[in-house]
């Protein structure tokens, strides 16, 4: 019963953060002058009189002649209604909402795959490294994760491209699918696949295994790059957390009970060691999102990140502000989920 109270309270805490977030985005778009709203919300295809009419309409809708703090609320109202303006970039030209609907699924896809990889690889390695401290394997792991941690994410991507894409020619490293294979397919129009906009899933839905395979292969390098960039810090944190836990009195007590060492580690130690890792997962998600931007750019993977960098290059204000807001929203909710999961797991949190 009390868990629900905690959830509700936590949800309420988000509201000031969300207000702050939207406010920052709003302020940012206004530092260079009030016309930003205009450029964000006017469809770039309009010219001449039609444009003037829309400008008039927007001015009244957004109350652009009012002081800034009033404008904020009207803008917020538009945002909440789903009207996020227009974006005009080389890969997409049109409403921001459509852009998000098209590109977000791909980003989610590689982020999810990367997250799974991070946990499946990171946790066992981190635990192993701590338990077998100073062994050859531990030293290798430490050196490896340290180096990975110091590498910029784009370098990881590039190295993977060179190793697996160029020399070994094993994996593709551009785009989301082999363009030839989708040239005559009914559910793939103009670079967009239906119904989920994720080519891999749609191909499976339509039973096109060849395309699915190609999509899968194209998925590997971007996800692995993302995963590698983040797993390095996770292993380090988990290792030091585990070492600290292993020093604790209750581990000594568990051993004094005659519990098998394997149980001591996997049951008693690991659960305690993972707690700080979960708390830090919020930062991990932030890293994932930022990393997605870089990774999608290197691999020409059409996701939100790719769209963002394109917007940056052509100075598309609408696009940049919208994507900033979007990323912020994703992160806020991801942090919320992490907090709730943590409260659920740690019995010491009293709700």
């Amino acid at each position, binding site marked *: 019963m009390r868990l629900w109270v905690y959830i509700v309270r936590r949800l309420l805490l988000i509201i000031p953060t969300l207000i702050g977030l939207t406010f920052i985005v709003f302020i940012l778009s206004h530092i260079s002058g009030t016309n930003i709203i205009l450029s964000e919300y006017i469809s770039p295809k309009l010219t001449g009189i039609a444009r003037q009419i829309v400008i008039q309409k927007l001015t009244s809708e957004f109350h652009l002649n009012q002081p800034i703090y009033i404008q904020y609320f009207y803008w917020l109202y538009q945002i909440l209604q789903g009207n996020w303006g227009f974006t005009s970039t080389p890969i997409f030209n049109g409403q921001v909402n459509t852009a998000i609907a098209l590109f977000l699924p791909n980003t989610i896809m590689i982020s999810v795959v990367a997250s799974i990889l991070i946990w499946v690889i990171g946790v066992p390695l981190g635990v192993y490294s701590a338990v077998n401290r100073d062994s050859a394997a531990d030293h290798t792991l430490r050196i490896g994760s340290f180096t990975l941690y110091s590498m910029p994410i784009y370098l990881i991507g590039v190295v993977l491209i060179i190793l697996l894409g160029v020399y070994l020619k094993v994996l593709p490293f551009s785009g989301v699918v082999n363009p030839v294979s989708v040239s005559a397919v009914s559910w793939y129009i103009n670079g967009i696949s239906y119904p989920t906009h994720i080519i891999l899933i749609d191909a499976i839905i339509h039973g096109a295994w060849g395309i699915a395979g190609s999509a899968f292969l194209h998925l590997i390098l971007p996800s692995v790059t993302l995963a590698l960039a983040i797993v390095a810090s996770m292993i380090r944190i988990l290792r030091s957390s585990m070492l600290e836990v292993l020093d604790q009195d*209750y581990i000594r007590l568990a051993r004094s*009970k005659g*519990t098998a*060492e394997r149980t001591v580690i996997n049951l008693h130690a690991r659960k*305690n060691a993972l707690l700080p890792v979960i708390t830090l997962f919020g930062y991990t998600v932030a890293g994932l999102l930022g990393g997605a931007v870089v990774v999608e750019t290197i691999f020409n993977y059409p996701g939100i990140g790719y769209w963002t960098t394109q917007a940056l290059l052509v100075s598309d204000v609408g696009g940049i502000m919208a994507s900033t807001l979007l990323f912020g929203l994703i992160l806020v909710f991801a942090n919320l989920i992490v907090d709730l999961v943590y409260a659920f797991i740690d019995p010491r949190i009293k709700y």
Partner: protein
Amino acid sequence: MENTLKVSDLKVQFYTRRGIYKALNGVDLQLQQGEIFGVAGESGCGKTTLGLTIMGLLPYNASVTSGQVILQGEGDLTASLRESFSKGQDKFNLKQSESVTKKLNKQLADIRGRRISMVFQDPMTSLNPVLQVGFQVAETVITHQPKSLAQRKLARTRATREDLEQILKLLKTGADEQTISKYAESKGLIGIESQVLNVWRRNDLGESKKEKIIISLHSEKLGSFDKIVLENVEKKGNIPVWMRIPGLSRAAKNVLLREGYAKATELLSMLEVPNPDKVVRMYPHELSGGMRQRIVIAIALANNPELVILDEPTSALDVTVQAQILELTRHLKARFNTSFIFISHDLSVLAEVCDRIGIMYAGRIVEVAPTEVVFKKPLHPYTRMLTRAIPTIDGGEIQGIGGTVPDMRNVPPGCSFRPRCPDGDKCKDMKPEMVEIEEGHFVSCFQAR
């Protein structure tokens, strides 16, 4: 009578960045079954290290340089520790000491919790904060006595009302534990007797209530899955092989765990924990210090070990709880004939429970004698000063002991107490040996002879 535990010339040292710290410099100790042996001394004299060495729970930077810890029937517990360090280590090798520690843990896992167990000083940090306390108690029973757990539950399933009424009759006519066990065995109900007796011996219930509870122990229901698991454990000591796949094995282990919780509840009620069935599902941070210490004691006693090492069990608790714990210790010795090593810096606490007391100083035991003798006729100068330093009801000035414990990195030759000793000159270069001055009274001091 053979000693339950014999420690001979035990030397243990720690490697630190600031030098090699010699914690134990030749400890000798003999323990009989059923006696409470107190180890007294100032902080830093090595008492905790002694306890940890016996259990084999030393930290990575420790090494046993010589000596033996012989448990009756097991041989030297520290043998493997010393083997690896026999090359005379002056430098510290982390990797090697880690692998040695791992090997040791594996070797001693069977003994720990079953034949020897330990109660640590600080109940707040001794319990795992993310596991229920009932689980932590049940775990040790499942590790060492899975069969008996299975038997308990199965006995309850197989027992008929008549069986229990018969047992009740036996109890009322004053039959002892053995008779009841024989009866249970004859009816194929091994495992019922301890449950019955535990209820019978409770102080917080009236007799008619107890009768009701005992009778109600019959014909308990048992699902078929549970039955398969338990019967297998009863016969072979572990869950059936075909159940050892990820999903199933968890369910199977939970069957045992449920009974483990029941046993934990029983243990807690024996330790006079109120509402044991609720406490068992709580987490350590929800309990008070006294309760936590009782949980730790329950864990230590769960498998009826021969030896329990208590490391300052009362120092972190207030005086009333202290009294309860001491009473408990006496009660357990009387009922189970368990041996205890009671480590404390507080001589007055030791005076209450111990049969014999050993005084430790700078890593050695310098005097051993029955409790009364220690207080009435202390022979070692250190012991004398300690006994004089205890506040008593009739007042009088307390005499402190001047000086401080020596730096254990550079132990001077001869008697380590010499700098603080009011007399003594022969012991400047020669370490006095432990000599039996009168029966059962050993001292290592030239003065005493």
